[in-house]
């Protein structure tokens, strides 16, 4: 391979590495803290933010129109103006000279359209930031602060209660239900989006970055999920909707409405949720006004399954109640025929169904898609067969300790780098420059690989990097020592470089491959710090193979051919 080709390969690698690294730079250095804070929030918090902001903005725009304000809109509405411009183009209307509130709103048929547009603009902006965060290097809990919890679903207790051994499908179903309940509850934190993962058969791993207060977390994990049936007040629901359209701040976090005349006594407002594309709870943006007291408690449910209507083939959810529950349900439904009944889990309205007539023990709910039916059945079953959750392990790291850790880690990396540079330059003189350059590249490549594979940077991983910095010098040292040997035997610069690299090749390959195999193996099987460390070690070894065998060689060859160097600056003794 000639030098130009090799040089182009190096450039290409550098460019690709930069592309991978860019999201991290953008997120950690170019995104303001308050935007980060918004983007790190749960999807519900983002939805909530967009909902409020859209209504505030629209009210502002409308007041401007009313006041006859013709001045162009400020920076805050840049996105909205851009969207309006697009709408004008689609409608083949001429763009106005100045984008006043009136001109921008004229792009939309009605209020609702404008509101939807505003809301989606806000939402998209924050979700885009969220995606950016997703493709940046992730900080482990020990660096970002927060807590990790391993929860076990107590399947033995469940089997005991059921009075028989559980089938594998039942065990699986129980853990899925537990994850479902955790998903719903932890999301309400809204501070930062938690990670909830199934781990092995009966364990669930929960990671909450930024928050380290065990009290709050125990509040979520304990308890079984409260399911109940409530009757909906349709009139009040419509009134609340109209009221909130003009007063977006008219409802607080406890769902108390500022105007007391809207929600009648004995009723409360609750949010209505659906599953989003990821199977996570998503607030629909709507509220429902339901009875404060449940019509029927969920612990009367005995079983719930999904079936399909014999005639229409539409999916339906069937559930049966115990004797006492059936009696209560009969009274409830006969008193509320033609009203809507809401299924509420942990204060979230999951679904509403119209009561067509009195129902007793066996209930059939229809009118939704197959997936929704499955979700509802899952929720109903979680009331019938509650799963106890046990905390297996819990580790918390305060975020200020995390900041210290980052600072220390960065310092250690910097000092290690400088020390190694100084040593190499002193000992190997000119060739030390090669080695140092290779080191800088190495660090750069390691970070970009970390970013590319969305790996998590933890303190042990930083330690792994520091160590690889030291170890990857090894490859350079082996080569340089070989070159020196060749020089001692009287070879010229070019021949010595060639022979040095050639002879060192297998020693470097073998030693690195063995380490990489061991590291990859550990990364596959290990967990937590072991994994982070092993991954960084493997990455470091691979990138040091590239920098030492490829880049460093190229630098030598460039010096030989471009600058017509015939002597070698590699040692104080050997010339």
């Amino acid at each position, binding site marked *: 391979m000639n030098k130009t080709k090799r040089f182009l390969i190096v450039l290409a690698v550098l460019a690709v590495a930069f592309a991978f690294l860019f999201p991290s730079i953008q997120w950690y250095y170019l995104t*303001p803290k308050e935007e980060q804070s918004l983007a790190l929030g749960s999807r519900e918090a983002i939805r909530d933010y967009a909902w409020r902001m859209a209504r505030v903005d629209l009210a502002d725009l409308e007041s401007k129109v009313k006041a006859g304000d013709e001045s162009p809109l400020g920076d805050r509405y840049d996105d909205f103006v851009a969207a309006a411009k697009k709408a004008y183009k689609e409608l083949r209307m001429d763009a106005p000279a100045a984008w006043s509130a009136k001109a921008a709103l004229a792009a939309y048929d009605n209020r609702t359209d404008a509101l939807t547009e505003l809301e989606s603009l806000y939402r998209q902006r924050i979700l885009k930031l969220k995606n950016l965060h997703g493709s940046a290097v992730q900080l482990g809990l020990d660096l970002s602060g927060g807590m990790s919890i*391993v929860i076990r679903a107590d399947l033995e207790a469940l089997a005991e209660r059921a009075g028989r051994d559980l089938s594998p499908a039942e065990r699986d179903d129980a853990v899925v239900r537990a994850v479902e309940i955790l998903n719903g509850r932890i999301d309400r934190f809204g501070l930062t989006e938690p990670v909830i993962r199934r781990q092995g058969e009966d364990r669930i791993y929960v990671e909450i970055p930024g928050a380290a207060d065990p009290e709050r977390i125990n509040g979520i994990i304990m308890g079984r999920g409260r399911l109940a049936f409530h009757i909906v007040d349709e009139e009040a629901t419509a009134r609340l909707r109209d009221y909130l359209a003009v007063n977006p701040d008219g409802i607080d976090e406890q769902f108390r409405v500022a105007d007391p005349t809207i929600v009648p006594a004995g009723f409360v407002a609750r949010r209505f949720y659906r599953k989003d594309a990821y199977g996570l709870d998503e607030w629909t943006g709507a509220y429902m006004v339901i009875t404060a007291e449940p019509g029927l408690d969920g612990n009367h449910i005995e079983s719930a399954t999904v079936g399909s209507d014999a005639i229409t083939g539409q999916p339906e959810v069937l559930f049966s109640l115990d004797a006492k529950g059936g009696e209560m349900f009969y009274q409830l439904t006969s008193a509320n025929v033609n009203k809507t009944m809401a299924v509420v889990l942990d204060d979230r309205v999951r679904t509403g169904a119209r009561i067509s007539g009195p129902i007793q023990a066996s209930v059939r709910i229809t009118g939704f898609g197959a997936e929704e039916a499955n979700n509802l059945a899952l929720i109903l079953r979680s009331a019938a067969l509650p799963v106890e959750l046990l905390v297996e392990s819990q580790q918390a790291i305060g975020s200020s300790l995390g900041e210290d850790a980052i600072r220390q880690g960065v310092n250690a990396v910097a000092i290690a780098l400088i020390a190694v540079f100084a040593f190499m330059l002193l000992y190997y003189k000119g060739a030390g420059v090669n080695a140092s350059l290779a080191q800088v590249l190495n660090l750069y490549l390691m970070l970009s690989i970390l970013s590319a594979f969305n790996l998590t940077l933890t303190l042990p991983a930083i330690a792994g990097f520091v160590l690889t910095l030291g170890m990857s010098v090894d490859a350079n040292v082996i080569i340089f020592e070989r070159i020196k040997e060749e020089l001692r035997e009287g070879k010229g610069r070019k021949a010595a470089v060639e022979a040095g690299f050639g002879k060192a090749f297998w020693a470097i390959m073998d030693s690195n491959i063995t380490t990489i195999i061991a590291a990859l193996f550990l990364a596959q099987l290990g967990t937590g710090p072991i994994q982070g460390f092993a991954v960084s070690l493997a990455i470091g070894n691979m990138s040091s193979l590239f920098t030492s065998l490829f880049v460093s060689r190229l630098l030598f060859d460039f010096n030989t051919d471009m600058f017509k160097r015939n002597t070698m600056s590699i040692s104080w003794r050997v010339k």
Partner: protein
Amino acid sequence: MKRLVRFHKAFLPAAIVSAALVLFSVFGLATKGFNLGVDFQAGVNEYVQLAYPVGTMRYAGGSTARLSIGDTTLSVVFTGDDAQSRTARWNLATVGTIADLAAALRAEGVEFAVRDGAGLAAALLVPTYQGDFVLSAAAVPVHRRARDANEVFGSVEEIRAAVGSVGSVAVQDVGGRESMQYVIRVGDDGSDPAFGSTVPAAIDRALEAAFGAGRVVTMRTDFVGARFSKDLANNSWKLFLMTLAVIMIYASVRFKVQYAAGAVLAIVHDVAIMIGFMVWTRMEFNTTSIAAILTILGYSINDTIVIFDRIREDHKLNPTDSMTTIIDKSITETLGRTIITTATTLLAVFALYFFTSGSIKDFALALVVGMVSGTYSTIFIASGFVGLWDSVAAKRRAKAEGQVGAATAR
């Protein structure tokens, strides 16, 4: 040509010294055992800071305000609609007294009601260890550390007495008595399924009863269940043995069985030495320690393979030379590289040791021991084993040939 250093002469004494060291390690492990960290020991580790309550913070504005107090800065991040989102930040070292800070916060709409210590430096404020606080109309308590030695209260003995009722308790101070930070460890025997949540609450209650309400700040709580810690310990062993097997296979394929065996022997030696060091210095054994052992595993194998590669090469170049000569030659030739690599890696490890704290500092210290042992074992254990194997094999061959010769003579 460099002067040949006759390393092989030191193989026997080195083997004796190593055997003694390994035995010493095993003896320590058997008699004293590991100083197991929370990862491996079922129970609760609660880190607490004793402190003085200063006052409370509230925020009544329309946006969400997140308070974060660090060692050097206090920041409030506002996100929401009624004001533009913004971040307010103060340097605690330069902002002045707590009263000055309260005035600055008030200008941002955050009400900091100071009840005690208004004239003291703001740098005394205790960081928000438990993560950021969301400020709301409900009051968030803020604490400060002791102003001087006279204000320091609490001691290991007092805390032990206070929480003695909770269970079998071990108390340790973090960073001396003046820092007023302590770790309280309560072991979990697995009888109470809700141990992880009841015990920290019980500790808090006991401490508040002893030192006064609001004077205890929980920094962090770690809990590991009995089953979890057992699984982790088992997995670690399995991982280690499997890694050895994988290295053994690769080295056998690339080199010869005796090389692979020598490399593995060297690794086992290094791990034994490190474990011995951890056991005898009572260093806490946790997942970071495992990472350290695994690193040395990687380092040692790297080091060993480089020398083996040279032995293989020299053997090919001079097939008639005796193995001991070749080993001596190869080690001599690579000695420069061994010293320089060890030196640079040690530079990096020392950077870790001097610029970090806590478990990473221990990690670095363990690495220093492991690296010294790794470099030593490459030369004297791994190469020595290959030399020994060869001489045994040569003797057997000679014996077999002798027998063949005897047979033909008859």
